[in-house]
């Protein structure tokens, strides 16, 4: 395979041959200097150096020319009395050296071509990789968006199931506010208005309206779409808020709610809305499991500190329990035992907990019912993934 001569001055052969001449002349000149100072004959060394340089930078032609010229200069300038056999042997050495240099420059040229080809291949591969990465990033973003949409749909669906309860929770403080307003007017419209009592009634009204606004605000946050918001959260506060929203649903089905929340649990970085969604899904499931069950209906929510800097929350009920022989499938997407269920609540809940660095699992209770437990690391900011759910 012929490789192009990649010598630097291959485009200008005249330059190459001219330099060959100059370099051999320089070698001869250096040798003369050595001889002048009675130093050993060093023409061979200088000549070989010159030949090597010319082969490398000038190309094969100029290199051979330098080798021939050097052989002639050596034979007829520095060693004219040399016998013919010695002359032939020296010429042979120059020839061999020239051949070696020819091979070396060919190998160099071949290497350069291969390097250029390989570089071209790598550049192409790099471009392809960049495109693939960009495509993958787009796909991951689309997946994240889908997960966020699915989670929001899950929240909306679950909130829809709680409509009656949510309406009740808002109605309570509004009813109290109406009564307090009437009371305030009664105190003011007396023959001798009682300003102190009227003020107290008005203060109660403010409290009533504030509670209604707070409940609406919490409901609105649950309906909101958006990317996860990391903030310092208190798990007990989240539990209490969700229980408040769903308490009337529990009461409607004669379910008592028992909270055993450990005091002094550390706060951690997490997404409040997502964690509320987990609790909402698990509590709604527990309530559904207890509807129509005879006997005690109790929902117990417990929080505690677990090992290895973890918090553990458990939601236990006295309902129908886990589906027999399918207990390991309940966290699968689209698995549901409800006639109206989407089958995504537990799946999404597990995804949310795992994105916080935790774990969610279920177990049966004795004599009946089920418990859903999840852990959350206290240093969640080191564990929270970008997975949106």
């Amino acid at each position, binding site marked *: 395979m012929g490789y192009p001569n990649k010598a630097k001055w291959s485009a200008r052969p005249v330059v190459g041959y001219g330099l060959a001449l100059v370099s051999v002349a320089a070698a001869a000149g250096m040798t003369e200097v050595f001889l002048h100072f009675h130093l050993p004959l060093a023409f061979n060394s200088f000549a070989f150096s010159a030949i090597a340089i010319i082969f490398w930078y000038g190309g094969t032609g100029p290199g051979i020319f330098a080798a021939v010229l050097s052989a002639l200069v050596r034979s007829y300038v520095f060693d004219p009395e040399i016998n013919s056999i010695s002359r032939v042997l020296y010429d042979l050495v120059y020839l061999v050296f020239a051949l070696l240099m020819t091979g070396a420059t060919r190998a160099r040229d071949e290497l350069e071509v291969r390097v250029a080809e390989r570089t071209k291949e790598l550049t192409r591969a790099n471009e392809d990789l960049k495109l693939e990465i960009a495509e993958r990033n787009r796909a991951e973003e689309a997946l994240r968006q889908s997960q966020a949409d699915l989670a929001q749909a899950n929240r909306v669906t679950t909130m829809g199931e709680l409509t009656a309860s949510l309406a009740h929770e808002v109605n*309570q403080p509004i*009813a*109290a506010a109406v*009564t307090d307003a*009437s009371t305030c007017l*009664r105190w003011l419209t007396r023959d001798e208005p009682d300003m102190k009592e009227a003020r107290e009634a008005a203060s109660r009204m403010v*409290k009533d309206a504030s509670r209604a606004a707070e409940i609406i605000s919490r409901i609105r946050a649950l309906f909101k779409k958006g990317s996860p918001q990391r903030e310092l959260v208190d798990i007990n506060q989240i539990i209490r808020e969700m229980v408040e929203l769903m308490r*009337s649903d529990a009461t*409607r089905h004669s379910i*008592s709610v028992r909270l055993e929340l450990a005091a002094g649990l550390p706060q951690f970085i997490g997404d409040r809305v997502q964690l509320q969604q987990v609790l909402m899904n698990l509590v709604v499931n527990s309530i559904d499991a207890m509807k129509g069950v005879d006997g005690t209906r109790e929902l117990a929510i417990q929080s505690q500190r677990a090992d290895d800097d973890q918090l553990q929350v458990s939601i236990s009920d006295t309902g129908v329990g886990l589906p027999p022989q399918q207990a390991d499938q309940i966290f699968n997407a689209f698995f549901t035992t409800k006639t109206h269920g989407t089958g995504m609540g537990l799946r999404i809940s597990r995804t949310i907990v795992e994105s916080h660095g935790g774990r969610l699992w279920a177990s049966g209770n004795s004599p009946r019912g089920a418990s859903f437990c999840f852990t959350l690391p206290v240093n969640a900011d080191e564990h929270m993934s970008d997975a949106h759910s």
Partner: protein
Amino acid sequence: MVIGKKANMVAIVDDDDLMRSALQGLLKSVGLPAQAFGSAEEFLKSGQQHQVGCLVADIRMPGMSGLELQAKLNADHCRIPTIFITAHGDEKMRMQALRAGAVEFLTKPFNDEALLESVRAALER
């Protein structure tokens, strides 16, 4: 309107703290003493059943409901005139309450005059 004072007190049983405060304030504005309880169990435990002239109770509460409380009081021969206030009123529940002897069945948010009239009627029984 100021209702003439009787020796009887009004008992309020509701799990919602804001509603308890509102009802107590309303009854105080017409000169009626009232005592509030957070649950039916708390009321029964207090032993006030026989000192109370009228009971204003929520229907849906954690634990014992208002209707269950009424049934318990009836079973204990402690027939306190009862006014039910509820956010979940339906006709079936209303009939059940009235058949069991309730004075009135009001849906939240209720008219304060309607409540006070019912309390007056209950206290005069």
